[in-house]
C-alpha cells in the first residue's frame, strides 16, 4: 500500500514537473508583460527598465534556470501584481476553493446517489423521467447565467439570500447550489446507468431469493457495486471544480484560487500563475491517488489484485 502510494507519487511528481516546465515556457509566449504591468502611456525606456528589473529581458532559458534554482530553495517568486510572495497568496486562496468544491461535490454526490438509485429502480418510470430530465436540464445551462438569475431572484426579488460574498451560512447557499448543478446532473446519470446495469446482475437475484427487500437491495446490495464508475466521474468532476470554479468565484466574489489564477493569467503574473497551477496540480494528483484508494476500499477485488 505504501509502495503503491509511493509509486504513484513519484510518477505524479514527474508529471507535475512537466506541467511546470510547460506552464513556464507557454506563459511567456503570451506577450510582453511590461505592457500589462505599466500604464499604457509609459515610455519604451520605462518598459525596458521594468523588464530589466525583473529579468524578463534575459533569454528564456536563463529565466528558467533561475526559476529552478529558486525552486530548490522553496522560493516560488514574488507575485509582482500583489507585492507578496506568490505561494503565500496562492495558499491563502486555495482553502476557500477547496471548501466550496468539497461541499458542493459531497452534496451533489449524495443527492445523485439517492436520485439516481431511485430512478434506476424503475427505469422508464415517471420518477426516472422526471429525475433524468430535470437533473440534466440543470446541468445543461451555462452556470454564469444560472448564477445571475439566481441572484436576481433570491437576493433582489425575494431578498432571502445575500447577493454574494462570504460570511454567514446563507452566503454559501447560492455558490454551492450553482456549483452543484452540473456535477449533480452528470452524476445522477452515471449512478442511474451504473445502477441499472448492476440491478440486472445475478447476485441481485440471489438477494431477492434470500428475501431481501427492494429498498435494501437498491441501497445496500446494488449501490456499492455501482459506485466504481461514479467515483471515477466524481473524481474528474472534482478536479475540474478545483480548477474551474472560476465562474462561480468571479460572480459571487468568492476569494478562491480559480479567480486568483485567471487574474494572474490576465495580468501575466508569472510567479503567481506558476504557484496557483502548482497547488491545484498537487491537489488533483493527491485526489487521484485518493480515488485509487477509495476504489480499493469499495471493491475488495481491486484491493486483493493490484492497483
Amino acid at each position, binding site marked *: *500500500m505504501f*509502495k*503503491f502510494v509511493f509509486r504513484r507519487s513519484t510518477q505524479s511528481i514527474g508529471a507535475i514537473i512537466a506541467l511546470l516546465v510547460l506552464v513556464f515556457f507557454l506563459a511567456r509566449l503570451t506577450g510582453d508583460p511590461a505592457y500589462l504591468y505599466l500604464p499604457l502611456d509609459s515610455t519604451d525606456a520605462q518598459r525596458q527598465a521594468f523588464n530589466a528589473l525583473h529579468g524578463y529581458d534575459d533569454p528564456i532559458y536563463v529565466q528558467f534556470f533561475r526559476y529552478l534554482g529558486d525552486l530548490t530553495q522553496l522560493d516560488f517568486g514574488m507575485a509582482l501584481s500583489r507585492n507578496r510572495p506568490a505561494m503565500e497568496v496562492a495558499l491563502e486562496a486555495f482553502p476557500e476553493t477547496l471548501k466550496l468544491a468539497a461541499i458542493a461535490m459531497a452534496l451533489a454526490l449524495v443527492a445523485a446517489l439517492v436520485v439516481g438509485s431511485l430512478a434506476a429502480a424503475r427505469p422508464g418510470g415517471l420518477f426516472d423521467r422526471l429525475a433524468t430530465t430535470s437533473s440534466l436540464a440543470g446541468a445543461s445551462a451555462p452556470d454564469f447565467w444560472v448564477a445571475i438569475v439566481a441572484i436576481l431572484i433570491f437576493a433582489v426579488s425575494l431578498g432571502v439570500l445575500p447577493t454574494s460574498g462570504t460570511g454567514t451560512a446563507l452566503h454559501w447557499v447560492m455558490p454551492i447550489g450553482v456549483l452543484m448543478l452540473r456535477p449533480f446532473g452528470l452524476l445522477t446519470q452515471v449512478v442511474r446507468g451504473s445502477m441499472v446495469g448492476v440491478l*440486472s*446482475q*445475478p*447476485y441481485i*437475484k*440471489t*438477494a*431477492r*431469493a*434470500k*428475501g*431481501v*427487500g*427492494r429498498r*435494501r437491495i437498491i441501497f445496500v*446490495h446494488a449501490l*456499492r*457495486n455501482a459506485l466504481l464508475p461514479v467515483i471515477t466521474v466524481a473524481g474528474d468532476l472534482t478536479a475540474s471544480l478545483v480548477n474551474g470554479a472560476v465562474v462561480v468565484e468571479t460572480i459571487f466574489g468568492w476569494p478562491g484560487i480559480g479567480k486568483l489564477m485567471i487574474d494572474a493569467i490576465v495580468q501575466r503574473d508569472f510567479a503567481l500563475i506558476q504557484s496557483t497551477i502548482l497547488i491545484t496540480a498537487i491537489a488533483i494528483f493527491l485526489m487521484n491517488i485518493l480515488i485509487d484508494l477509495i476504489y*480499493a476500499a*469499495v*471493491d*475488495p*477485488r*481491486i*484491493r*486483493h*489484485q*493490484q*492497483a
Partner: protein
Amino acid sequence: MNTPQPLLTVENLTVDFHAASGAFRAVDDVTFHVDSGETLVILGESGSGKSVSASAVMGLIDTPPGEIVSGRISYRGTDVTRMSEDKRLAFNGSKVAIIFQDPLSHLNPVYTVGWQLAETYEVHGKARGAEARRLSIEALRRVGIPDPESRIDWYPHQFSGGQRQRIMIGMAIALGPELLIADEPTTALDVSVQAQILDLLKELQREEGLAIVMITHDLEVAANMADRVIVMNAGKIVEQGIAKDVFADPQHAYTKRLMSALPDEADYRDGKSSGESEPILEVRDLSKTFLLSPGLLRPPKSLRAVDSVNFDLKAGETLGIVGESGSGKSTIAKMLLRLTDATSGEALFHGKDIFRMNPKELMKFRRRVQMVFQDPFSSMNPRMSVFSIISEPWSIHSDILEKSRWRERVIELLGLVGLRAEHADRFPHQFSGGQRQRIAIARALACDPELIICDEAVSALDVSIQMQIIDLLADLRDRLGLAYIFITHDLPIVRGFADRILVMQSGQTVELQRTEEIFRRPQRPYTQMLINASPRPKWEQSNAAHA
C-alpha cells in the same frame, strides 16, 4: 413420499417473454409437483424453459420482460404467484431457497461471505449481530468450508469455484427451507468438484429431509440425483416419470435423442498409429512461469503454469490434452500458437522451433497451424460478417487465394462444415452456439492447415451439439488428413476421438498414453479419479437415498 399433499404443485404454468417482434412462449402449459424430501430433476437443453419454470416459484422471472400468463403455483396449498410483496419476502429463503450455476456472479463481490450469510438471518429476523455471525460460521462449517472462523471474512473471489457453490448452498439452507431449487449447480465446475457438490446436496437432503428440484442439462448429473425426472423441450414437458424408467426406456423421440448423446462405452479410435512417419510437432521441456502482479498488500509471487511438458504429434494424429481448470492445458495451446511466450523449452514444428521463428517463418507457420477456441461467442469479431471472418486468413496471407475466388471458396467451406451459402452474409450473433463453432472450424480450414488446436472447443455447447461437432471434426480429419491437439476438461468426450491422451494436473504431465490404455489401464490415481468422477446413476448406487 408419505405426504398425501405435495409440497409444491405447478399447474398449467405458461410464461411469455415479450419482445418487439411479439411474445415468445418460454414455458407452455407446464404441470408438475414436488413431494417433501424427494429429488425432482428437470432435464432439458438451453432454451427449453427449465430454468424459467423453476424461477417462477421464487417470483424471480422479471428479468427482462417475462410474464406469467396463466397457471398456478401453490406451496402447501397457497398460491405463491399472487403473494403480496411482504409475504413474498418472508417466503423466499425461509420456505424455498435456490442456488445457481456460476456462484461467482451470484455472490455479491463487494461484501464478505459472512456478511451475506448473516444478512439471510437478519432480514428474516432470525438472528442479528454476533449471533448471526455464529450461525454463519456454523453454516459454513456445515457445507464443508475449512476454517470457517477466519474464512467468514473472506470475499467471494478469494474462494475456489467449488467452495463458492458450497457457500451458496450454505446460504440457501441457512433458514432450513423445505425445498431447494438447484439451477445447474455443477455446470461450471470440474468433474471432481462436481461429484463433491452432488454428494453434499444428497447428504443435506438426507439430514434435513429437504426436497430438491434439480435443473440440469447433464444426463449423468440427472441420473445421479433424480428420484423422478421431467424432460422439457421448447417450453413443454415431453416426458416424465421415475428416473430409472425414463433413462432405461425413453418414450419420447426427443428423450431418445438426448440419451443417445451419452458417449458410448466401446469404440476407441483404432489409431492408424502412423508410427513410422516423422512427427510434425515435437514439444520438449515446455515450461511457463507467470509472475503474479503484486497485490496492494502482498509480495509478488510466481506461478509455474506449465512445467516441463514433453510430447510429439504425427501427421493426421489426434492428441487429447485433458485436465481440470488450472492444469495448464490452455497455456500450452497459447504457447504453441505463439499467443504467449514460453519461459523455457522448445516446440519444433517440422524441425523448426516455433519460439525462435523470424517473422517470415512465423507467417508460414500460422498458415499451417490453426485453432478453434472454447467460446464461439467471443472468438469471432461481432462486427464482421461470416464471409469476412472466414476470408480473413486470405486477406492476411495474400498469396493463398485471389480475391475473385473468395466467395466461391467461402461457400464451399460453409458446405463442408454443414452450413448454407446464404449464411455468409450474416453476423455471428445471428447464429446458435453450435453454428458459430462450425463457422470457427470453417475459418480454421480456410488455409488448408496441417494441425488444428482445439481449446475446449465443445465445452460451451449442449450435449447433443457437442457430439455433432466432434463428429464433424472426426469426419474432416478423415477427409483432409488433419492433425488435432484437442484440449478438454471432459475425459469421456475424447474417448472415441483421440489417438493418444495427455493427462495434466497443476502444469505437470500425469500420464501420456494411447486412449484405450488410459481408459482401460489408467496408471495414475489422478487419471483413475477423472474417469470415475463421472457421476453414476442413483439407482446403481449401493446406499441410495431413502426413496
